[in-house]
């Protein structure tokens, strides 16, 4: 028998082929016992509301059987009109994150370690209920505290109602926009945000505002940006120390010394006043204390000095002022970025005074105030004597004397007062996804917090920093798995209410926070429970939505054509009902995803100005030290100033690290996927012998962190820029990111008047790290 070489090859070939063939057949996709093999394959698009950020865009989720597989925008939602941002697109990674907590967990053993025992919901709720009742009976209900994120929804109302009825004044939400609200309170008597009518505005003079990347209504602003760029009817001047996304999209970027934005605004105001380029009719009719403001400016503001202190050339100041006048209507906008300095209130007020000078308040293309959506108010609470007494207790985080409504609410005050047990110790703390700042600060103080608060409960759906603190985790679901509503941010001029039912049923043993609270309420005795008469959260939500039906205005989301019709009718005082019954209304509401009122009514003076004079109040009683930029002292050891900035769609956020699709793109301008970088001016880098992509240490008196140096001409020679909220690993589980959090470089300084942390005065040095 002769075997030819060729035959041999054939046999060998057959053999080598059969191997992969076998592996192919035994592949899991052919696994005959796999259940996912054969499902109904029923596909539907379920309308919902994205709550990955405070924006509340309308989304449609593609659901196949019981899996959610893709998110698109709801074309009828007036905010985002069918579009979704990168974070919203990555949202299902939250839902299917491996970091999800599967069910109630109890910490066993040492509180500093993380050893968990799975327990039943009954046991978990029983533990909490017993604890709450014990504290209440011993007159200590005020020593229970809740810290959560600022949301624009009914969940917020439910939580605050629960703690009011229970008898605790310590319901804490961090609001990064508080500084702006304070400014509007001072100037117009409203503790609210104003909307900017970008669509009709011809010049956006932005003092470091991230209106294209970090506002809750960014999808609206992005759409308007696109439309106006195409029409050629847009001018943006971006004034800020770093070349941000907004600066790159602006017609002109003007770098400025951080913290001196308000001073520049006063400089611009002085040109407007001296050259009489302001709206005199408006100033006379709608403002007060203009004369004081004028004399303050004429006496104190010299353009040369402004130019020197801000770093903005004199000619630019004059040019900006003239353009601000000629491109009417123009808006001067600022946002929370200006709040992170020790003179934040001054900066924001000074910028806003430009809008009053131009007469751009309550006018098209200017600043408008959103009307509240007419949802049904919750019935008033009936408090028992325990609650009444407890609510009269001092609120925990300081009541420092202040003329501002929200002086007391800041992360540091709150945590410090808890740790110092002043004015009293906290016995039980509930945590529900408080913001990034909060998380960063509690990481720093973990040991002290555990040492001073005997019982901590986390509602986090994920294993994260807050759940690692907890003694008990009652895992909430993500927003895709529950009934939810959302009220549009007041940064949009029209009120929008989004509403949705669960896209899929809750995964694992997670349970919506809302149901948990309603269940707890029922265990707290009859007097307590009567304040929560709803059988479930859905019933409560629909109860609120009925107000929209009865209000006889606005409409369920509809096409742009119908929307335009309605607006015209309503602005002339007409309205036509579209539904015969409440039930029909609610059904349609859930199908379309929400309600809106497209009309805007101008000249309702008492709504826009709620102070005694019903006028815009110019503030000129600034301390002179406020006016100057708050540059910290020169320091030879730390020659550079640190500029921390929020990455797009991340401000105040603590969940985006569970979205790797989204996280990996945040460094796209610097070609970075999974590193933290530091932006260095070429000149500075040259002097320090640092080359592009070197690994460097960034060190402040508070500590040091490692980063990749990127040479960047978009930042001044005396500053280095670093991003916040960037993770270095996909699916970073707790602890992996905290080492490199640039927030830990900050010195603990705060604006004394508003209590907001100062991100601007920390100085650092950078030097090459050895090795990689």
């Amino acid at each position, binding site marked *: *028998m*002769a*075997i030819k070489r060729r035959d*041999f090859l054939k*046999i*060998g070939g*057959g*053999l080598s082929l*059969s*191997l992969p*063939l*076998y592996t192919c*057949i*035994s*592949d899991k*996709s*052919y696994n*005959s*016992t796999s*259940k996912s*093999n*054969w*499902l*109904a*394959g*029923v*596909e539907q698009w379920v309308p919902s509301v994205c709550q990955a950020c405070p924006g509340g865009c309308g989304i449609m989720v593609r659901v196949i059987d019981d899996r959610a597989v893709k998110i698109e925008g709801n074309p009828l939602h007036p905010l985002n009109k069918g579009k979704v941002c990168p974070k919203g697109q990555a949202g299902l990674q939250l839902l299917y994150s491996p970091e999800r907590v599967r069910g109630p967990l109890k910490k066993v053993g040492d509180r500093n370690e993380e050893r968990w025992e799975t327990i039943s919901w009954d046991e978990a709720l029983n533990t909490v209920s017993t604890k709450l009742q014990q504290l209440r009976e011993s007159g200590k209900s005020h020593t229970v505290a809740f810290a959560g994120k600022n949301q624009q929804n009914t969940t917020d109302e439910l939580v605050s109602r629960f703690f009011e009825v229970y008898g605790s004044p310590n319901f804490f939400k961090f609001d990064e926009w508080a500084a702006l609200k304070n400014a509007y309170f001072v100037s117009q008597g409203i503790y609210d945000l104003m909307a900017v009518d970008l669509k009709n505005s011809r010049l956006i003079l932005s003092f470091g505002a991230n209106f294209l990347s970090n506002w809750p209504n960014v999808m609206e602003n992005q759409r308007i940006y696109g439309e106006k760029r195409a029409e050629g009817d847009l001018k943006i001047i971006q004034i800020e120390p770093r070349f941000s996304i907004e600066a790159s999209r602006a017609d002109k970027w003007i770098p400025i010394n951080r913290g001196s934005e308000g001073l520049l605004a006063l400089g611009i105001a002085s040109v407007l006043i001296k050259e009489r380029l302001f709206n005199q009719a408006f100033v006379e009719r709608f403002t007060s204390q203009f004369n004081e403001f004028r004399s303050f400016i004429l006496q104190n503001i010299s353009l040369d000095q402004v130019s020197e202190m801000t770093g903005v050339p004199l000619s630019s100041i004059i040019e900006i002022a003239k353009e601000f006048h000629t491109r009417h209507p123009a808006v001067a906008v600022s946002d929370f970025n200006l709040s992170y300095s020790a003179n934040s209130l001054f900066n924001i007020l000074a910028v806003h005074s430009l809008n009053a000078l131009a007469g751009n308040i309550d006018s098209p293309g200017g600043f408008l105030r959103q009307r509240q959506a007419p949802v049904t108010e919750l019935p008033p609470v009936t408090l028992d004597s325990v609650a009444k007494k407890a609510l009269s207790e001092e609120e925990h985080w300081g009541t420092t004397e202040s003329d501002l409504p929200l002086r007391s609410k800041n992360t540091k005050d709150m945590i410090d007062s808890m740790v110092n047990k002043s004015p009293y110790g906290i016995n039980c703390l509930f945590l529900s996804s408080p913001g990034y700042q909060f998380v960063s600060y509690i990481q720093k103080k973990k040991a002290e917090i555990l040492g001073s608060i005997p019982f901590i409960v986390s509602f986090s759906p994920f294993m994260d920093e807050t759940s690692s603190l907890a003694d008990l985790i009652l895992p909430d679901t993500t927003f895709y798995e529950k009934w939810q509503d959302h009220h549009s941010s007041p940064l949009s001029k029209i009120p929008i209410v989004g509403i949705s039912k669960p896209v899929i049923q809750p995964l694992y043993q997670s349970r919506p926070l809302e149901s948990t609270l309603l269940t707890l309420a029922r265990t707290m005795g009859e007097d307590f429970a009567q304040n929560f008469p709803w059988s479930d959260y859905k019933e409560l939500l629909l109860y609120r939505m009925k107000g929209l039906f009865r209000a006889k205005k606005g409409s369920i989301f509809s096409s742009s054509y119908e929307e335009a019709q309605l607006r015209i009718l309503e602005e002339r005082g007409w309205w036509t009902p579209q539904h015969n019954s409440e039930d029909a209304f609610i059904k349609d509401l859930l199908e379309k995803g929400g309600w809106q009122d497209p009309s805007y009514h101008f000249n309702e003076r008492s709504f826009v100005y709620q102070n005694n004079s019903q006028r815009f109040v110019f503030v000129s009683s600034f301390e002179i030290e406020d006016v100057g930029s708050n540059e910290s002292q020169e320091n030879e050891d730390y020659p550079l100033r640190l500029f921390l900035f929020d990455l797009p769609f991340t401000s105040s956020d603590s969940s985006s690290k569970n979205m790797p699709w989204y996280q990996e793109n945040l460094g796209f301008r610097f070609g970075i996927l999974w590193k933290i970088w530091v932006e260095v001016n070429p000149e500075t880098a040259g002097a320090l012998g640092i080359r592009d992509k070197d690994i460097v240490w960034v060190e402040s008196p508070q500590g040091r962190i490692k980063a990749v140096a990127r040479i960047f001409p978009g930042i001044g020679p005396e500053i280095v820029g670093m991003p916040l909220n960037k993770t270095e690993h996909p699916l970073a589980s707790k602890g992996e990111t905290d080492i490199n959090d640039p927030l830990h470089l900050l010195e603990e300084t705060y604006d004394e008047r508003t209590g907001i942390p100062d991100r601007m005065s920390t100085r650092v040095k950078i030097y090459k790290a050895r090795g990689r």
Partner: protein
Amino acid sequence: MKKLRKPKKLGLVLVGLTLVVSVFLLVILIDSWGGITQPLPFNHKIHTDNGLACEDCHPNFMEYASSGRPELEICASCHEEALTESEEEKRLMEYIQDGNEIDWVRLYRIPEDVYFSHRRHVAVGNVECAVCHGDIVESTRPPSKVRKISMEKCMDCHEDQEANNDCIACHR
């Protein structure tokens, strides 16, 4: 006797070895290939003879890509009470009583790289079920082997029907 030359001997050894290994692999292959056992020995013929149409149990093929796995509810709608004395039906009744979905095993398989839509073929292309599923309605016992649809068969039919034969029309 002539001595075998060394190379040839080695060759034979190799052939033998290869054969052994191949047969071994083949056994594994056949083993993994065949042998599917349905949780219940479903009789298609009895059901169709009693007037049930395909869509009564596979409700989705006109609307979705997947034809739909028959749900217990569908069984229960006729088998409210046992209709026969058969052992199989007794077991079905247990499923219904316990409310446990029957874990039917998928019989027709297409490879992972193919996107197949029932709606496209049945609702749009008016293809009869039997074109791909053969005489399954006549079967009295569940087939014990996975039925694979071959690409050749797809291509032939597409050619006959002048349907799109572009690779990406089917390959995902």
